[in-house]
């Protein structure tokens, strides 16, 4: 069973690769809109990338009100 720590780490890795931001600049509690410099549609792009990685489907509404990597990882974890 994947732990929340591993899921969070994967989310950070994938966000770093997808938006070409060095991994060491990203922390779990960061506001990803700000750290990655993205808008809400680009955040949906990230969601697609995460779905492919975790082999799950996340409806758009799962991202609602979420702006930090940790909470995003928790939403994913609950569907693993």
């Amino acid at each position, binding site marked *: 069973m994947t732990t929340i720590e591993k899921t969070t780490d994967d989310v950070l890795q994938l966000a770093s690769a997808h938006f070409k931001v060095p991994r060491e600049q990203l922390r779990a509690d960061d*506001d990803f*809109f700000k750290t990655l410099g993205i*808008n*809400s*549609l*680009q955040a*949906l*792009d990230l*969601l*697609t990338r995460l779905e492919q990685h975790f082999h799950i489907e996340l*409806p*758009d*509404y799962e991202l*609602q*009100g979420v*702006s*930090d990597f940790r909470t995003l990882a928790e939403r994913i974890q609950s569907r693993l």
Partner: protein
Amino acid sequence: MLDLQEYKCLGAALRVALDRWPDEVCLIEADRDREKARFTYRQFRDAALPLARALQDASFPIGTRAAIIMTNQSKWLISAYAIFFCGGVLVPLDYKLTPVEQIQLLVHSKAEFLIVEYHAWKAIAQASNFTTLATRVVIVTEAPASADRAGAKRWEDFRGPGEPCFVTREAKDPACIVYSSGTAGRPKGCVLTHENYLEQCMAVTPIFPFSPGDRYLSIIPTNHAIDFMGGFIMPFTGGGAVVHLRTLRPEFIRDAFTRYKITYMAVVPLILTNLQRGLRERFAALSPMKRRMLNALISINRALTHRGPRLGLSRALLKDVHQTLGGSLRALLVGGAFTEPATITFFHDLGIPIYNGYGCTEACTAITLNDQKPFRPETVGRPVPRMEIRTRDQDAEGVGEVIVRSKTIMSGYLDDPEMTAETIVDGWLLTGDLGRIDATGHLQLFGRKKNMIVTEEGKNIYPEDVESVFEGIAAKEYCAFATNFLWPARTMAGEQLVMVIRPESGQPVGEQTAASLAERNRRLLNYKRVSGYLIWDADFPRTASLKIKRAELADQIRKTVGREAVIPL
């Protein structure tokens, strides 16, 4: 197309439409690449009437307010029709608001019924202000079989036996209460009448006519006035169809264009710039030779369409580009917020028929529309039919506040006669936007008179509404402003909010205050956040009842410091 002059209310017009085209498709619901539902007009009626009956069985006197909180999907429109059928007043709420905000608006609107998606209801039931909710009947869609519905009924089972009784309304009766903005501060519930909607529909359909086979891709939330008109009333009263897509992911939007041969789509600037980015990336991946060819074709298209779109010609010249948008698109409408002329130019040069517009919920959506005949991307076009428009208090350059008059103007703000009287004067709606009307009747916008911003997603944000989350920060007092209100700029692009902080006497604003501001800021939805803060070393001017005199404070700030004093958060 129905002759809407014959109808007094939306329910009556929709009822006739459902019988007029029984076998035409009116609604398709897709999720990603899967089609989830498809309704003909007859099937739509057959789905809505048992719901209407059940509403009436649950006691639904004429004028009952019923709210909907749903993403764009078939049950949204079916429920809305059932509410109109019963003579109810629809309160469409933004599913993107926080549950606390949704409850605040439900309470403000005095909605007795709530129809809501299960995931949203779950969040509402856990909100801190849940106990303030006074809705009498809650109906949830798509609740899992074992779910705790917190007293709500299941939409799928909420069906009454027998025929419901159609309840007609008068033209001046309220049809919807639409919140243009405001939650915690002073909610602006625009009361829009049946006449408002029917008039707006009659004004706009000659420009965007619907008939069977025409399809509108609905991605702007349906609670938004643009989508309610373009993605419900207009297609349904013309025999057209609405395609709901339950995701905003660009790859599925592109796919839907082709799959469903979309003829119309309305977008907010954020989606338009995203589409632009996608097309640019495609162009950048072309070989140098193909790129040169494309550029040459774009130049030819630009030269041949300057006086107005020539869709057939553009589709032939730039076939591949048009195919990515399905090849059937007749109009791409952009509204809800200011669109950069460069973005409009990008699509126009490709021969994609783009229409930018200007409007507001208070005017039941569109005030002006720009058909690019001739190409004037720096303007928002000319008034829609039967819309009177003027500017008042003009400056030396002819820029003044835009005021409008038409049968589409709301009857007022719900339970707020004072704000209504300030906004509608002698029948004219004062928009608070600054513009200039040129000799050809085109309106160009130059900023706002009012202290608010509109985001690229078409969300109106009033500074007062974000202030409550900052309660308790280490400051003597604080106040949020739109930066362009503090320092007027002749633009409506890139608008931001700024927090003005008056520190406690003798206490410097250090890293701790900044960190606490940043932490509070993150509690807001991302599009509502303040972009920076400004230190102000004097007490705020206040009224006798201790309210901040915002205009006076803004004046003092403007005279003392400039934008460079704002510290980014």
